[in-house]
């Protein structure tokens, strides 16, 4: 798994009474690996209930100003707290309607979705639901999308970095960045398009229809093939490698292209 940009220590508030479970620990670990700072809400006392979590969550929101909240639906074993997470969600959204909240439900599309929850939320609120069994990678991916900050730089594996703002591509060697001068103009645009799709979702392909503007002549596909080849050569030269047909940028069944981070 490759790191896709650094999250600059953004704080994530974790509100789940099972935060000590192995499952949650693996999520916390993943968040830290990806550069987030998880802050666990853990009220103290002999009989901690859903209300304590609610109070502490609202307090922590003011205190810590997190970038997002990871919230469980169910709290404790009491039936009254079965949907406590939903009332906490409501309170969070009331305080800050734009706060991104990722909710852990039992199943990805539980009965919670179409109940009072969605009705009580404003159109601007960014709330998403995820299954508690989802892999830590999936949780972090969804959280990052929910926060929605487009990264200034996108890393492609451990070899390259694209700086969208400064329109530059760097090669990374021993932690240092070296500008690849050859990468500019159309080559840079194609690479940025492919990198943006890759950042959104690893399996996302950029179809030919979206790349046609980079081609010329009667045979647009052939022209595009030449451009991609040049692009791969430029990047290959920077690391003294020759990227083959199944490396870096690959043609998928003549549908389009997809970026694949190179193996070091």
């Amino acid at each position: 798994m490759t790191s896709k940009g650094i999250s600059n220590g953004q704080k994530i508030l974790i509100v789940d009474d099972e935060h000590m479970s192995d499952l949650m620990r693996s999520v916390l670990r993943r968040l830290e690996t990806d550069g987030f700072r998880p802050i666990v809400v853990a009220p103290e006392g002999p009989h901690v209930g859903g209300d304590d979590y609610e109070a502490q969550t609202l307090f922590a929101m003011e205190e810590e100003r997190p970038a997002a909240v990871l919230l469980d639906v169910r709290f404790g074993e009491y039936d009254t707290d079965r949907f406590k997470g939903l009332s906490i969600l409501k309170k969070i959204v009331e305080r800050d309607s734009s706060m991104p909240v990722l909710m852990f439900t039992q199943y990805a599309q539980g009965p919670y979705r179409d109940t009072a929850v969605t009705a009580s939320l404003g159109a601007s609120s960014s709330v998403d639901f995820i299954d508690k069994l989802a892999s830590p990678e999936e949780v972090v991916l969804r959280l990052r999308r929910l926060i929605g900050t487009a990264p200034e730089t996108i890393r492609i594996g451990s070899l390259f970095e694209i700086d969208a703002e400064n329109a530059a591509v760097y090669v990374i060697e021993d932690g240092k960045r070296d500008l690849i001068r050859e990468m500019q103009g159309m080559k840079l645009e194609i690479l940025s398009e492919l990198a943006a799709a890759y950042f959104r979702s690893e399996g996302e392909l950029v179809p030919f229809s979206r790349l046609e503007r980079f081609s010329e002549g009667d045979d647009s596909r052939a022209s595009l093939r030449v451009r991609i080849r040049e692009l791969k050569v430029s990047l290959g030269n920077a690391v003294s490698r020759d990227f083959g047909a199944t490396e870096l940028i690959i043609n998928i069944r003549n549908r389009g292209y997809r970026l694949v981070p190179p193996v070091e």
Partner: protein
Amino acid sequence: MNYGIDRTTAAIWIKFLNNRLLKYLRKGGAVLAAIGLVLVLLSPVIGEPISPGSLWWIEPVAYIGAGVFFLGAIAAFVSVQLASRRQGQNGGDRSWSRVTQDYFDTFAHDMGRPLRRILGKQREVRALLGETGEATPRMVTELLDEIEQQAPNFRLMIENVRVLVDLEDEHARPAVEPVDAAAVIRNIADRYLPIARERDLELVWWCEPAEFGLVYGDASALDHVVTNLVDNATKFAAEQIEIRLTRNDSHFLIRVWDDGLGIAESHLVHVFDRGWTPELSARREKQSSGLGLYIASSLSERCGGDLLVESKQSTGGDLNEHHAAFTLSLPLDNRPTAAR
């Protein structure tokens, strides 16, 4: 409430008498009762001409009329009672679905508990192995991966059961909400990417146009149908799985394509049957319950769309020319016309 008909007898009769039969019984009973009543009332007029000059026949005619009246009245009464019980039983079906859903929601948490623990431990083991700094034997990672992959399997299975119960409820209506269709597909692709990778399959998805926009429909149903299709594709693909989201003027289309051996023409008609599974080698663990595609198809229909299958099997000449593709088509806007 007791209507004077023995409960078990009634239950048996309800099974055998359909609505149309009950309707005839009710009408026939009413007509019979009316004839009886007419006989009683007109017994002097009818009885007298039978034996002219004597009143002897008037009494038996009245008795016969009374008997016919009671027979008809009883038939009509019983049919009305049975019909109302039948209706009650249908109403019971609806609440059965709802009660089951309620139970399901209540126990969903507990049902997932063992798996959550197993998955948690597995991820913990992985982290601990990572911390040792030594390379983990490939065999161990593969075993851990295998455990990890059971999670989406379980998620889909539980969700299938929930949807199956929901489909039993004829009166349930799909939700209609603004849905970011591309985001739904993206989430499914993300969930299945590790599984595809583990099976050496390439999974790609894309949408055209790039900015797909919102559609109005049931997000949960969309997610569920496509998840079942992608799950199916991961079982049969040889190397490639493609998910493509496109739209026309009235519908949006999701095509899930795989380069597997394809489906025999004789099997195509059965693909959406409940419980149908292809004949796989008996040595392998059965991978499919035969419910996924049935549910996908029923759910698409309920949402006002349809699900089509198309397949090509290799014909000797070009061995690579085989595939299976499912295309789900749903209305862009499923809101009632007045609400738009």
